[in-house]
């Protein structure tokens, strides 16, 4: 996992978010204020631009640039939450990047989100996608799986975690103001987290294919 891996991850995540922008906004309209897709699309577009304008000199720096850009450009709750997650990952990431190193850095990112948002699993937030993904990464590391397999499992865990928010009652963020009426809708933050993890798995596929070539 070199610098290029991380830059590709952000480019692919931006692409996924752009494709699913309206879907994310519709999820947000059901339980929030209908701006999640629009805001993340704007933020990740800015991240791609920042990574081009200031090419990172280490994987950790790519994460720090992405995190800082999201905090400075997005606003709302998703800017600080995703921004802090990537910044915490960047601070924890050692070069060269190994799978156990990545898993530990990812865990640090999830802890940062929990600390800032004061949310716990089951509160119907992005944590419900990120925490299972982190657990899957750690477990895959212990089993000695390849990055491709590990990221695939993390993406599946995030996807399942996001879907599991549908029957939950929101206890944090704007959706919490709906009380019982938040039940029956997928959390937009969990859904966007699953997209970002899906992009990660996609990049790992590209890398794995490259190695075969």
């Amino acid at each position: 996992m070199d610098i290029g891996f991380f830059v590709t991850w952000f480019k692919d995540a931006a692409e996924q978010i752009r494709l699913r922008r309206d879907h994310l906004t519709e999820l947000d309209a059901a339980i929030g204020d209908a701006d999640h897709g629009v805001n993340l699309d704007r933020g990740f577009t800015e991240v791609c631009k920042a990574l081009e304008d200031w090419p990172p000199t280490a994987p950790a720096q790519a994460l720090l640039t992405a995190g800082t850009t999201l905090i400075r450009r997005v606003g709302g709750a998703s800017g600080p939450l995703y921004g802090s997650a990537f910044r915490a990952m960047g601070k924890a990431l050692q070069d060269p990047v190994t799978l156990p190193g990545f898993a530990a850095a990812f865990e640090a990112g999830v802890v940062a989100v929990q600390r800032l948002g004061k949310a716990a699993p089951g509160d119907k937030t992005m944590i419900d996608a990120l925490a299972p993904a982190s657990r899957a990464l750690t477990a895959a590391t212990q089993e000695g799986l390849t990055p491709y397999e590990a990221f695939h499992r993390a993406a599946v865990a995030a996807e399942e975690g996001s879907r599991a928010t549908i029957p939950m009652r929101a206890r944090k963020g704007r959706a919490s103001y709906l009380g019982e009426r938040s039940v029956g809708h997928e959390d937009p933050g969990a859904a966007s987290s699953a997209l970002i993890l899906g992009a990660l798995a996609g990049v790992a596929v590209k890398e794995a294919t490259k190695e075969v070539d």
Partner: protein
Amino acid sequence: MKKLINTAQSVVDEALSGMAAAHPSLRVHERVVYRASGPRAGKVGLVSGGGSGHEPLHAGFVGYGMLDAACPGEVFTSPVPDQIIEATRAVDGGAGVLHIVKNYTGDVLNFEMAAELCDDVEVASVLVDDDVAVEDSLYTAGRRGTGATLFVEKIAGALAEQGAPLAEVARVAAEVDERSRSFGIALTSCTTPAAGKPTFDLPEGEVELGIGIHGEPGRRRAAMASAHELATVAMEAIHGDLPLAGDLLVMVNGMGGTPLMELYVTFAEVEAFVRGKGARVTRSLVGNYVTSLDMQGFSVTVCRLDDELTRLWDAPVDTPGLRWGR
């Protein structure tokens, strides 16, 4: 949905240009709206901000006797730390700066981050959380901050203008919040320029009770009813949380799409309700102050006044959105 805009992406910047052009007392720079007169030495600076779409909140309350700067975010999205840091440094007259923050997760996070990074300025914060529609506050992010934000900005602004120190301005700001309660009802959804369609479906015969100010759905739906009945629902919710007593400051606020005629009909009902509980409306405000784009509906905000708060409410104010006594 027809909107008088150029593009959804440029709405906020173009609205700010228009505001600056219409009001020479304001200066707009990098998405911060300042008093053109600049900071005054020894005066506590007041900074607030939040998503755009609530006009005249907050930029319309920048001026003498209220805010020193406002940070508008994207539509319904809180500002970013950079804007808040810029504003805080620019309005500091050496006496420190008060951040007035509505209790929405995004606003709280971005103001917290900005305050942390502004270590060269003494910053105090007041969190506005007046919305009684939010129940189970132990398990949620707490009550929302809505209409009482205007009361806090006006009263704290008057005290700052009189030269009070930061701790005192912050104390009174928190007291206004503690004494204030709000409840909102929507007759229609609103349409954000980026989405281009209503945020939620609200059939002709129904209303949303307990809405916030972002077009988010409320606590529950009910059948459309008369102004008398809707005002009673709002006032019972407020009275059940903070009993109406003594002298009250009452605002009947339009959400952006309701004619003043209907707001006055509603105010008459609210005033009668207050009298029925043995309290008195001694100060009032009727109009569009904390809006939610083109939403039809209203919110009521009540503040229990004392002599000091009444005096500060009456103090001169000169902003695009609120002006008297000067």
